[in-house]
């Protein structure tokens, strides 16, 4: 790596990291404002009718809702800096504990779904790009559109009906059977890891069985996106001069596609991959709800049902931070593997 190249990469990384701060601040401000434009204060909405006016006033004061909006904003931002997102109204749980206890389930689901999406989407995109404008290409494009357009909960319900209800092959909900969940000590809050740590292969297998349908549901959603992106990029790179040059040199078509076109087609794919984190987390909320998956998404819905705005605000804040951070990491990776980005 030349000095000039190293210098430009460093400058890019510093610029990108510095820009991260205002980006986060804007997002946090939007979250804060959105939570405040809803009518009524969160305490009254969550507990109105169940507490006396005096108790509601005390809870409002304890939660800081009797202070000016600017003071509340400052406390919100400074709380995030201290990693203090408040305590839920309905069950007095620190919001950070929700992530600690339920984050593992969401991580398991989303990472499995991502793997499935890559395993399905990338090869299908490669095939579709390679056989462009054929019947197979058309079929794969329809598959991509359908998997992307089909609502996650609908796909999940179909899978439950077919594979759980009718065929009885797989369980339809939860991370594991209740008895299995009970016997595996929770060390990491990631069930499959806990089962391995406990040396309980039957529990691990039970967890895998429970994971298949939700991961497949969410994975298929993303696979359609991946397939279309890989296909388009592959078609573009197959038209490139260097591909033509490779063909002219007598390189076999298989090598041309895989070693020259496909690898270069994956560079923009990495950028898109970062953007899919938000789609993945959004889809995870619906998937968790459909499959009674005890992750952050199902907790978000639970607290929304209870109108616990402190919990909802905290969860949305951390999810937003996760998306922005993932975006930063993808940009950095992209800058490292693709020199054009940093110039």
């Amino acid at each position, binding site marked *: 790596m030349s000095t000039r190249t190293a210098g430009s990469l460093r400058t890019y990384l510093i610029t990108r990291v510095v820009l991260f701060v205002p980006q986060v601040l804007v997002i946090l401000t939007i979250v804060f404002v959105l939570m405040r434009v809803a009518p009524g204060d969160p305490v009254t909405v*969550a507990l109105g009718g169940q507490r006396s006016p005096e108790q509601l006033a005390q809870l409002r004061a304890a939660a800081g809702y009797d202070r000016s909006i600017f003071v509340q904003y400052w406390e919100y931002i400074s709380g995030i800096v201290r990693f203090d997102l408040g305590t839920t109204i309905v069950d007095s749980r620190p919001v950070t504990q929700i992530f600690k206890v339920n984050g593992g389930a969401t991580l398991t689901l989303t990472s499995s779904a991502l793997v499935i999406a890559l395993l399905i989407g990338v090869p299908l995109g490669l095939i579709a790009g390679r056989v462009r404008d054929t019947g197979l290409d058309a079929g794969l494009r329809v598959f991509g559109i359908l998997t992307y357009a089909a609502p996650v909960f609908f796909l999940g319900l179909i899978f439950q009906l077919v594979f759980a*209800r009718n065929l009885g092959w797989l369980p339809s909900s939860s991370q594991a059977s209740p008895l299995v969940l*009970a016997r595996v000590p929770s060390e990491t809050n990631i069930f499959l890891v806990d089962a391995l740590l406990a040396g309980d292969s039957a529990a691990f297998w039970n967890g895998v069985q429970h994971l298949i349908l939700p991961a497949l549901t969410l994975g298929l959603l993303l696979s359609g996106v991946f397939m279309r992106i890989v296909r388009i990029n592959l078609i573009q790179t197959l038209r490139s001069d260097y591909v033509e040059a490779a063909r002219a040199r007598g390189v076999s078509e298989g090598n041309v596609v895989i070693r020259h076109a496909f690898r270069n087609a994956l560079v923009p794919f990495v950028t898109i991959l970062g953007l899919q984190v938000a789609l993945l987390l959004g889809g995870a909320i619906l998937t968790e709800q459909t499959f009674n998956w005890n992750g952050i998404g199902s907790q978000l819905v639970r607290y929304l049902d209870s109108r616990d705005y402190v919990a909802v605000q905290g969860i949305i804040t951390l999810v937003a931070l996760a998306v922005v951070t993932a975006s930063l990491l993808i940009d950095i990776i992209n800058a490292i593997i693709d020199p054009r980005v940093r110039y």
Partner: protein
Amino acid sequence: MRTRRFRAAAALAAAGALVLAACGGDDEEPADANGAANGDDADVEEPTSELPIVLGTTDTVTNVDPAGAYDKPSWNIAYNVYQRLLAVPLGETDPQPDAAESCDWVDDTTYSCTLKSGLLFSDGSELTAENVVHSIERQKAIEHESGGWELLATIESVEATDESTVVFNLSTADATLPYILTTAAASIVPMSYPADALQPNDQAFGSGPYTIESFDVTQQIQLGINANYSGDRPLNNSGVLLQFYQQESALKQAIEEGEVMIAYRSLSVTDIADLEENGADRGVNVVVGEGTEINYMVLQVSREPFDEPAVRQAIAQIIDRDAIAESVYRGTVTPLYGPVPEGVAGHVPSFQEQYGEPDVAAAEQILADAGVETPVSFDLWWMPDRYGAEIGDMYGEIERQLEDSGLFDVTLEQLSWGQYSTVFSDGSMDAFDLGWFPDFPDASNYIVPFFHTENFLNYGYSNDEMDQLIEVIRTDTDQDARVAAIEDATRIVAEEAPIIQLWQRDQIAAVRDGVTGVEETLDPSFIFYYNMVSGVEE
């Protein structure tokens, strides 16, 4: 080179996955380490089933420290973890000794209980009269916002006169005290519980048949057997797993797939109907017990049009509760014709006595006799997110019944519970729906809060005769006199119709083949005694 490394890593990962998969199997072994003590103690009966009972529910548990909860799901765990001085035995309606040997009135405002000897908490500490004092005093000191402590409001002081005797001094005569002492609010807790703060949920323990082994309200609560329990309740299982589901549909799938042995609170009406029809093919049976949850329509008697008794009576004359129970609830509720539900002492079908069968002509006559112009217009409010998805259909049916009579013009309005709960008592609604779960199976629960001049609905109802009857219901320790007063009050309610009761919901559970004991615990006390249930491995 990199390609080869990648291939080698991929092969290793695949091989690892196969090995792990091969190590597993389709058969799930039942949990063998539930932590339950199985009869080491001579006082504990040998459980009749080695399996922990797996109970699925959509309920939300908030707190199992009795000083921190006032909701049915949390109380239900308290009923299985703690003892109270008194309890209402299954199938009965009167309080009987639990941790107490005996209890009796000393005078109108003094109540004394003698504890059984040899009672132990699960940590081995002794249960004495001091524990009762500590339990009541910390309830009143903490004053948790859930409000359960308010049930103990008439207890001015409580003292332990010796190790086994506790005396309650009341600020005013309160005939319901024995019932109040059966509630989870009066659960007896260990001295190690903080006097002014809540015990953490995962560290809660008592002297009841179960002890908490793990606590995660988002997923699962695990209860094991309390080896020190020496009460009268039989123990038919080796522990309980409460598995939480967010959706009724997921709970139904879980019982069908055998993931849970019991599905209790709540299955949707359509799911219940499906399980009743087809459940046997899937190894699932539906069990029904008498319930004491009621639903009712409040009429704003403080202003037009319901300040005119004839308008209220005409509505009572038209509403067809049978049609609601069958067409909307598919028989999962029982028509309720009075303020006190069936199964509770003092129940009288007073509306049926007063109005007979639904009769539009009779309603027309009532309105004509009072000179009321028809159709009478009013707004009728309900909320979609509190008492089940069928409430909307029910009010659609009520609107149809009233408008088909040609005597009423009903405008249905709905509001989410968050807003509804803040406005139902401000007089802004002409008529509105509410539901009620009793704290204990005594008729006073269904009369006093609703029909005293100072009622929580603030709907303008006031009747001197009713207030006098309520005074008897509240304070007379002669049960016969109380029941007579309750029956009189019930008839006044039917005559004046300020509130029209619609149904009482049956308690319904779905159980897997081989699970026994559920039917016995679904009684009007509304307490699910886990110890009654036994399961067999399928």
